[in-house]
C-alpha cells in the first residue's frame, strides 16, 4: 500500500468519525475558557464593582531598570493604561469608551485605528478575561507544549491571534503568546502567569514574566483598588495646544 492510499483511507475514516467521540477527553475551546472563567472566580466578585485601579511594578531584567504601571478599567467601557520607565518616559493608552488614543515620547499623541485600536480594546475592556468566549469570534484548540496544559487560539478580524494556555488541573492561565501591534510593527511576546493568589474573590496572577524579542520584563502586582474616585477627564483625548 503506498502513501497515497493510506492518506485516502485516513481522510475517508475522518469523514465518518463522529465529532467529539474520537477522544473522550477532548474538550472544546469554550469548555476550556469556561473552566478558566470559573477558576478565576467568575463574574460574581465583579457584580457590585464599577471600576478598578491596578498598580504594577515593571522591571527590565538584566538592566537594573524599574518603572511603574497603572491600569484603570470601568464598567462603562473607559480605560487608562499608564507605564512609566525612568528617562524613557510615560506611555499612556486610554479610551473614554468611544475614542481609543495613545501618547508617548516616541510616537506622540495619536488616535488609534485598525489592529492597534482593536488590540487595545480587547486587552483593556472590563472583565476582559471573563469575556474571551464572546469577544473573540474565532476560537480553536491550539497545540500545547506540555501535557499539563491545554491551549486555545483566539482571534478577531482586526488584531493578530493570541494563544492562551491553561493548566489542566487548576484551569488557571499559564501563558499567553501573541504579537503586540505598534507603529513600529508587530513584536512577538510571551507572558508567563505566575504566583496565583485569591484576592477579593478573584484568583490573580501576582507576577508575570514577559519576553518580547530579546527583552525580558518582570511585572509584579502591587495593589488593587476597587471603585476608586475617578475624574472622567483622565480618559479623554488630551486637548492639543
Amino acid at each position, binding site marked *: 500500500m503506498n502513501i497515497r492510499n493510506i492518506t485516502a483511507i485516513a481522510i475517508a475514516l475522518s469523514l465518518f468519525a463522529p465529532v467529539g467521540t474520537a477522544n473522550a477527553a477532548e474538550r472544546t475551546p469554550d469548555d476550556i475558557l469556561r473552566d478558566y472563567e470559573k477558576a478565576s472566580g467568575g463574574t460574581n466578585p465583579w457584580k457590585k464593582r464599577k471600576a478598578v485601579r491596578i498598580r504594577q511594578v515593571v522591571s527590565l531584567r538584566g538592566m537594573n531598570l524599574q518603572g511603574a*504601571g497603572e491600569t484603570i478599567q470601568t464598567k462603562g467601557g473607559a480605560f487608562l493604561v499608564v507605564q512609566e520607565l525612568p528617562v524613557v518616559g510615560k506611555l499612556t493608552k486610554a479610551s473614554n469608551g468611544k475614542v481609543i488614543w495613545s501618547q508617548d515620547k516616541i510616537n506622540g499623541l495619536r488616535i488609534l485605528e485598525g489592529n492597534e485600536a482593536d488590540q487595545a480594546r480587547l486587552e483593556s475592556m472590563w472583565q476582559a*478575561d471573563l469575556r474571551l468566549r464572546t469577544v473573540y469570534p474565532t476560537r480553536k484548540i491550539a497545540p500545547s507544549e506540555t501535557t499539563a496544559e491545554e491551549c486555545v487560539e483566539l482571534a478577531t478580524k482586526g488584531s493578530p491571534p493570541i494563544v492562551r494556555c491553561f493548566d489542566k488541573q487548576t484551569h488557571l*492561565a499559564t501563558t499567553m503568546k501573541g504579537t*503586540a501591534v505598534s507603529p513600529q510593527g508587530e513584536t512577538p511576546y510571551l*507572558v508567563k502567569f505566575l504566583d496565583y493568589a485569591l484576592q477579593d474573590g478573584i484568583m490573580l496572577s501576582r507576577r*508575570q514574566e514577559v519576553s518580547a524579542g530579546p527583552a525580558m*520584563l518582570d511585572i509584579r502586582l502591587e495593589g488593587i483598588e476597587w471603585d476608586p474616585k475617578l475624574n472622567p477627564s483622565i480618559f479623554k483625548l488630551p486637548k*492639543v495646544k
Partner: protein
Amino acid sequence: MPSPFRPTVFAWFLLSAVGLGACAGRAGKDPTGGADPAGAIETQPAPFSPTAPPPSTPEIENRSPYASSRGAIFDAAWRTVGEKHYDKALGGVDWNAAKEKYRNLALGAPDEPTFYRVMNDLLGELRQSHLFITGPGDENPLDALEKDNSTSAGGDPGNPGIVIRDIEGKPTITRVRPGSSAARAGMRPGFIVTNLGGRPLTAHHPRRTLRPIEQRFYLRRTADRLLQGPAGSRITIRYIDNADRPAEATLTRDAPTGKVVRFGNLPALYPEFRADQAGDIGIIAFDFFMMGDLLDQITTTIDKHRVAKTPGLILDLRGNPGGMAAMAISIASRLVSKKTSLGTMQFRDHENHFVATTSLDVKPYTGKVVILTDEGSASTSEILAAGLQEAKRATVVGGMTLGAALPSAIEQLPGGAILQYVIADFRTPAGVLLEGRGVQPDRIVIESRRALQEGHDPVLETALDLIRARKDNVRK
C-alpha cells in the same frame, strides 16, 4: 482582570529601552568592537547549541579573587550571544568551536584584565561593533593612566573642554569649549597634541586592525577617555601651538555642564546640549541620544524654530556616538510632514520599523534641515542621518560616519560582569546596512589645520552656505 497585564507596552519598551545599547563607545570601552580579521575562523561552522555539553575544561588554579566567577561569566556571555544575537547563524562563525578555543584561555588567565581581553577576543570572532564585556577586576591601561594623571578628587567626571581629533593625520584640537579651563589655559583649535597625560596619541589600536575611519575614531576616543576624569583633577598636555612652537600646559577638568542621567546599568551620563543661532539659522548640537530632559530640550528648540519660521536648522551630530535608538523617531517626527521610514531594525525573530510620523501634538518644522557628521557620529546618529538623507528631508554635510550601527542591549551577568551584545541589525529604507559602511555625506568637507587655526569651522560653514543659497533661490 485575572491577568492584569497589557502587552501593547512591549513594542514601546523594546524600542526605547533595548535600543538603548545602539550606541558606540559610552557603555563599552572599545566602540570599534572586536573586529579582528586575523582571528577569523575558517572552519565549517556547526550550528550553535546552547544545550550542547560544554567542552571539557580542566580545573585551573588561579590566584585572582574573581577567578571563581570566570566559568559562570564565560558561559553566560557565550550563551547570551548565542541565544539572543539577531543572526541565528552568527554570521557563519562556529560558536561552539569558539567556546572550545577561548574557554580554557579565559579561565586560565593570570589576571582579570587578561580574562576580559580573552572574553572580548571571543566576542571579536563575530567581527561586529557593540559587542563588549567588562567586569570586576578589569582595568585597561587607559584606566590606569587616567588614575595616574588625576588627583583623587572623586565626584562627578569632568573634562577640560577640548575635542582632539585626527586632522591631516595628526592629533589636533578641533574645539575649545568657551569659558572652559582649556580656554583659560590658552588652548586653541589647530594646536597639535604631541602628548596627553604622559603618552603620545596614536590612531593605531595595539591589537586590532582597524578601518581608516575606525583609526580616526580610536584616536578621538583615546583622547576623550584620557581627558575625562574626576572634576577638579588635572592632566598635562604637550602641544605645538599655532605658531608651531612646542609648549606644555596643565589643564583642570571642569565639572560636567550637562545634567546627570542615570539609566539602569549604564554609568552616569552627562549629555550636553547646545542651541545656537547663526543669523536666522538654528543650530542644535548634542553629544548623546538620551530621552528625558535632553529630548525635551531638543524638541522645544525645534518647535521654537518652527514658530519663528527660521529658514534652516542644523543638527550637529559630530562626535555623537548614539544612544537610545527610538529617539531618532522622536526627532525625525518633528521634521517630516508625512509618514517617513528611517529604516528597519531586524531582530532575531521579528522586525521593527523606524517610522517618523505626524501626530496630533506635533507640528513639523518645514525649513531646510542639514545634519553635520564626522567619524565620531555613530549608531543612532547614523540612523537619523541616513533615514532623513534617503527621504531627501536632510542634507548630510561633513565626514563619513563610523559605521557602527548595530542595536544592542547591556546586561548584567553572574559575577558582576556587564555584557553588551548585538540584538538586531539596521538597514536604511533603501536596504543599506549601515554597519561597517556608515553614512556617506551629500557634501564631504575636508577639514584642515589651517582652517581651524583661522577660526573656521568649514563643516558648519558649508551647511550655512547651503541653507543660505536655498533661501536666496527662494527669494529670486
